[in-house]
């Protein structure tokens, strides 16, 4: 199932690699990603695809020190169009 996530990350050099590693390792394929950076943070919108329930990813992402916030956007619509 595909999920659209919005993630707010502190703007630190390693932060993007760190959450992308977690995404891959926990069994989620990245299908699209957009990053906007402001002075202190990145806002990342990304689409992931996996057979695993999405909370297995979001709970792991929330543990990362640089991740301020994780939001699941519009899961049902995406599931219906999948």
């Amino acid at each position: 199932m595909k999920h659209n996530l919005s993630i707010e990350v502190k703007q630190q050099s390693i932060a993007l690699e760190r959450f992308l590693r977690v995404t891959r390792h926990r069994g989620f394929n990245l299908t699209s990603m957009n990053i906007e950076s402001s002075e202190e943070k990145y806002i990342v919108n990304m689409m992931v695809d996996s057979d695993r329930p999405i909370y297995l990813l979001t709970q792991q992402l929330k543990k990362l020190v640089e991740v301020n916030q994780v939001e699941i956007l519009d899961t049902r619509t995406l599931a219906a169009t999948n």
Partner: protein
Amino acid sequence: MTGAELTIDLLAKHGVKEVFGYPGGAIMPIYDALYGSPVKHYLTRHEQGAGFAAVGYARSTGKLGVCFATSGPGATNLITALADAMMDSVPLLAITGQVPTAAIGSDAFQEVDVLGMSLSCTKHSYMVERAEDLAEILQEAMHLAQSGRPGPVLVDIPKDIQMGAVTYQPWLAADDYKPEFKQSELAKANELLSQAKKPLAYIGGGVQMADAQDELMQFLKTTNMPAVSTLKALGSVKPDYPYDLGMLGMHGGQAANLAVQECDLLVCIGARFDDRVTGNLAKFASKAKVIHLDVDAAEVGKRKPVNASLVADLKDSLPHLATHKTNPEWLAHISNMQQQHAWRYDYPGEKVYAPYLLNRLSQLMPNNGVVCCDVGQHQMWVAQHMKFSHPSNHLSSGGAGTMGFGLPAAIGAQIARPNDFVLTVSGDGSIMMNIQELATIRRNNLPVKLLILDNQRLGMVRQWQQLFFDGRYSETNLSDNPDFVQLAAVFGIPGETITHANQVDAAIDKLVASEGPYILHACIDDKENVWPLVPPGAANDQMLTEVAK
């Protein structure tokens, strides 16, 4: 003040008295600042030894373990210890030197992207990019390693930042990560407890991490709930608790595994349903509702769905659990199973029987001693046949299963607890993985005791080759091992070899009575296996027991 001086100063301010490490080019300024400082440094003979000594120090005390290494190969040699600390939630701070900032990315001598390598094996990691950030990063790192679910944190410090001028700025420590459980979940949990007829507590390493042994025992004694423990939890349930079923899982006791399969409520307290614990997950505790208590929300429902969860420090959540009415039939059944499946030590052969040796040693060694082990058959025999009064007295590489863990972990434990008896139990395979640390024992005259159970095999792999690979013993014969007593003698460590059962009791007395370091080399039957065994993919009630040798 230089960055290096600030680093040592902050460690001292944080109460770090002892660190482990190995110097090299990119961390020389920090070693220069160490010279004559109040922080005592222990030189190991390999960076992995320093990492595991710091792990042993942390696990035997609950304090922060600290290790140093230089850039490149020094740092990569720490990686295994970091991964081990990550899997077993050990509070560890690793400080690595890095090539100067201007050289980073130029493939400089001894340059490795350690920050990149750290991502999968640390709770968090930093590379210091600006001198003015150093103080805050170090203080945050020490805090993070110990707060919430503990873990390893790495700080990579380029040499120019170690040498450059910095000012110390006190950092206002962030509050500890202390999630509060939901009252609605507590109500659900207590409802489940009130309905349960066959409840069972499944205890994990989180109890030690939360320093919640008292709260656990209070809960168990009030409820009379039978308890099973993971490898890391051994010692959390006091040995005199009558319904302690010991370790569950692949090499768990039969009573423990059968109780899990029969229970109607599983109260998981700081454990994570590891595959070595559950066997076939779909068949694990399949009749049970599940209550999960953990400080890490990501563990809840990760492998097994739960009916209620309390995400909080165990010290805060455990006292709120309701105390249900004891079911005498269930307790009688548990007691029966304990008797029926009790360990037996009346081994008929003339050879040294490792379970007997370990059980007797456990009874005769001083109270509050620390037992470290390596990984393999001996590790499972230690878990099965030795008793521990606290999990900080049993240091075993659980999640990572790292051979070579035992000797350096024992060094860290002995330095942390100089007045306690510290023993490492190893196999003839594992001991060779960090054998160079005998030099660290000699250098510091540490009274670490070493027991090698020698079957001239990589025994656990050999056992699986016998059972699951048609007896094709690929690369597991170690009959060309060195003479371990001679080897230890080279490092000034006395000891003896035994080969027969009738030598065991006297040999244990000698080992326990020895004042300094000592090695007991026990030759055991190469065909001896660890029983029971839940085969891969099987349910936990499908245990194999002794098969013909």
